[in-house]
């Protein structure tokens, strides 16, 4: 089965640490295969196993929860 890909618009990132924190959190989730985040553009690309996850599930991560400083929406 083809690898799933989503693009994210990520809000609230200010430095390299933010990128590391969000990437780590995303990768912790079962089914997430690769994460690429651009601090400058506020964008992220996530590759995932579609047998484990749907695109919307990528946002359901504590790093993007209501109490977090970071929030994200799906772009594609």
């Amino acid at each position, binding site marked *: 089965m083809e690898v799933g890909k989503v693009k994210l618009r990520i*809000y*609230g990132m200010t430095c390299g640490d933010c990128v590391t924190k969000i990437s780590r959190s995303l990768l912790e989730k079962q089914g997430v295969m690769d994460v690429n985040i651009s601090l400058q553009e506020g964008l992220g690309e996530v590759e995932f196993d579609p047998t484990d996850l749907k695109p919307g599930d990528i946002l359901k991560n504590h790093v993007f929860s*209501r109490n977090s400083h970071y929030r*994200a*929406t*799906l*772009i594609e």
Partner: protein
Amino acid sequence: MRKEPKRYDLVILGRGAAAFSAAIKGSEISNGEMSIALIGTGPLGGTCVNVGCVPSKYLLEASHRVFMPKHPRIDGIYETIVNHDFSTVMKGLRSYVRDARESKYAEVIRNYNNVTLYDGLGKFLDRKTVGIEDDKGRNVRIVSGSNILIATGSRPSIPNIEGLTEAGFLTSDSLWDIDKLPSSVAIIGGGAIGLEIGQALLHFGSRVTIVEAMDSLLPQTESEIGSALRTLLEKEGMKFYMRARISRVHKYRKKKSVEIITHKGKEKIAVDEVLLATGREPNTKNLNLEVAGVKTDPRGMILTEASMRTTSPGVYAAGDCVSKKLFLETLAAREGVIAVSNMFGETANIDYGSSAWAVFTYPQVAGVGMTENEFSKKNGSCLCRTFPLSNLTKASIMGETEGLIKITVDPKDNRIAGMQIMAPNATDMITEGAYAVRNGYTIDDIIATSHIFPSMSEGIKIAAQSFIRDITKMSCCVE
């Protein structure tokens, strides 16, 4: 070749309640980082502030100030004629609307640097791209959005009646510009808008005739309320033609002649003005929804899930353009918030079941949840009680005993399934019903909650008590 679109995180079609609440929510969640395009025509704020809730409530309040002193309800207080000037009232109304629009919409949105306002009508070019047209239909701009929210609202529907266009008519869009009170008005449609405007004009001194196609007023309400309201309005002088339709309107000297067909046959009335209140239709026809894959119901209203997602991924809808039963500012705003919350991966759903609605006649009518009929149809049986305000101390002191409170309960567990109220301040009282329905409170919860004596809201407690005892034999001190 098509110009490269300007890219936004969120493109919103519309600039009314749903659009504003969505733009503000998106800005708040993203801490002002979400780039938002807000596209629309007409005055900022859309229907509610300009031609809906705000001017209609202003006109009603002003009209009651003229009517009530002429109809005192307490012995020893005598009829007083209130000097007033209708054209100054209307100027005051327009100035209030201008100020409300400026302070609640224009100034507010100026504080959000992430939001760009575009003047023009939006039209989908594809699922992610919207063309903006000026008033001549020329495409002046193209924008694209990672997410798109359709919040284009609705407008008064104009029925196809012979002679209507030539004779001229008012709608809830144009009424607010008049300066002279029409001495007689035929209002076509006896729903919330027709009754509110009708009573306001009547209270200022117009002779008002309502022509309604159905055989009862406010069919979404309990039948006791529809008929109690009709009796009261008739007592005030409003005339009703029920199960009636207009076959023709024509200008006759300075008047308009309206031909009404009822089961009794044809009848003609002569009036100064005709006001249409036959419902509203969604602003969705020219949006090119097909290219975006957004489906509508047969009336053109956009189909959504409870998450406000449409049939097209990344495209959401909110407000009066959505296929639903209740069309309210409060719901439009809530739906806008829900749509945006879901864009951010939250799991938010609209709950129509506990949404309170209202008709701002005097007395007011308000409700939440299911009617007796709706509950019985769904569940086979229900328990309900109707408490007339004539049994309520506060109402009888005020001499305002025409109303009632009806509560419908699930017989399985005594939870409140619905509440409808006709009372001078029903729109304030109904919030108790909304809490009860939303949180699954029982009649015991209502009885155990302290209510002020004597007050109108005490009526809700007594209505709840009427499930467990005969309240006609109850002292007013019984807990």
